[in-house]
């Protein structure tokens, strides 16, 4: 796995081959269990202060890019028990355009 | 011919169930009679005792069990003790003469005796004792219950396994043609 430092370097050099992901959430389904936060290998998620309509705190993105950046691994999506969070990678977007 | 009740009593292994079944089946399917076949029922069927009941009628049979059979076939001493007292007075009694010993004179209109087991043994297999008896029953009471020889023979041959058909046919004929002493 690529280290944080390497990612930072690659991003600075503009030589990044690291896939980039965008995180999405169906917020009303989130129960704030925090598994996506705990299991994100890049630590890009934190609990937000906001509460959704069921009274849970959904996750949000950390404020410190570019090191803590989503690489679209999909861990949050697979570990989420509530079908609430998912990621789209560049690949997905390309697929969409096709 | 109104309702006629018949009972065949013996012990397990003598084939009294099959004997009753082939007779009732022949009456019902081939002789246009209404017939019900049942197996021994209630407290009288204890231990190794085994009995089959046949009720024949012109119309549909209502109560399907023999109450006081007018035709009683006995193939064991125990069956005699159990079923004879319940027999209708003046009925027809048929016994396996080597297995049943009557105490005194039963109150019957006819008494028929046959050494069915011995006949079967002479044919080579004790297992056909019941069919010897069926042949004898057909001869003795066939006309009275509306049972034709061809029908009962057909019923027997249809109900026994193919490889012993010939033996059973012989057994039936031996019983049917048996001359009482």
């Amino acid at each position: 796995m690529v280290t944080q430092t390497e990612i930072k370097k690659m991003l600075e050099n503009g030589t990044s081959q690291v896939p980039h992901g965008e995180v999405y959430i169906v917020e009303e389904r989130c129960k704030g269990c925090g598994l996506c936060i705990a299991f994100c290998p890049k630590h890009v998620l934190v609990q937000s202060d906001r509460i959704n309509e069921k009274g849970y705190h959904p996750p949000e993105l950390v404020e410190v890019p570019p090191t803590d950046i989503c690489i679209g691994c999909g861990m949050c999506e697979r570990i989420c028990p509530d079908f609430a969070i998912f990621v789209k990678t560049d690949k997905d977007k390309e697929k969409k355009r096709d | 011919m109104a309702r006629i009740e018949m009972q065949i009593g013996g012990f397990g292994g003598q084939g009294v169930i099959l004997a009753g079944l082939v007779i009732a089946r022949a009456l019902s399917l081939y002789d246009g009679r209404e017939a019900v076949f049942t197996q021994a029922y209630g407290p009288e069927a204890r231990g190794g005792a085994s009995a089959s009941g046949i009720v024949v009628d012109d119309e549909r049979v209502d109560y399907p069990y023999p109450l006081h059979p007018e035709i009683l076939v006995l193939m064991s001493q125990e069956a005699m003790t159990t079923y004879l007292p319940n027999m209708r007075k003046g009925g027809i009694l048929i016994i396996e003469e080597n297995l049943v010993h009557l105490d005194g004179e039963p109150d019957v209109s006819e008494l028929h005796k046959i050494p069915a087991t011995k006949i079967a043994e002479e044919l080579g297999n004790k297992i056909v004792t019941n069919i010897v008896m069926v042949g004898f029953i057909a001869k003795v009471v066939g006309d009275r219950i509306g049972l034709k020889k061809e029908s009962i023979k057909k019923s027997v041959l249809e109900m026994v396994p193919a490889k012993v058909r010939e033996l059973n046919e012989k057994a039936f004929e031996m019983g049917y043609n048996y001359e009482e002493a």
Partner: protein
Amino acid sequence: MPIHKAEHHPLDAYLRTERLPHVWCPGCGLGIALGAYLRALQNVGFDPQETVMVSGIGCSGRAAGYVKMDSFHTTHGRAIPFAVGLKAARPELNVTVFSGDGDLFSIGGNHILHAARRNVNITVLAINNYVYGMTGGQLAPTTPESSITTTSPYGNIESPFNIAGLMAVAGASYVARWTTVHERRLQKSIEKALTKRGFSIVEIMSPCPTTFGRRNNMRGIVDSMMYYKKYSVIKEHPNPLDGVIKPGEKFIVGEFMDAPDEPTFEDKLEELKNKEFLKTSQADRTTWILEHRRHLETLAKIIGGEQ
């Protein structure tokens, strides 16, 4: 920084979305297991129209109510025989039983043994959360020794089932165990189970933070998952008899049994309907049946530790 909001989830095509959010508690592993199943379905390309989910009773039983396919929420313990009957009627359908450890191994224990023995071509996803969750956390046939439940307040004095061992011995064609932390391997394993001909079962160890975790030193939602991460050991072809789970000790996850394909129960039922078969001699039928004795040799090898 807020995340992009979305109206739909990629799995929504498989879900009765109008019924979401589901009834399961925050952090419950059932949703993860269900997600893994749906992704597996998607990957193997099964037509949802020919796919059926049957559930029993308990939290896991509700899964059937969330999938957008023919689905049945039956009675306690009877999901397996319901599925057996359904498969007998319609062998071409893909039938998955999604149910819990209590439902499958306690009240329904007899059925799963016999379904495995018969090699019924169904996939069983056995969600093992150690406990009766829906009813408040009572003792289950899988509760580890010494664990606290509402009906074992002094600690469980019984031994739990080794599900993997039990299923392998009963005659299952495919037996695997993963936890909800192993989501990717779990999904691959379910894909294998779905495409495996014969009885396949994936035991999915799944946390119940609400009724088990908080009574057993896994207070937080994440703690239960971290426990699995810490104590599970992935093994290649583990011996099913080593599938015992003890509290505070490492336990094995992996594929305990992957027997070669053999005729399934449904195959044999179909064969019986074959007119030519009905006409063959008893000796020929006996030969046919004996030729298809289930993978006994493989089983003996695996349990004997040769593999």
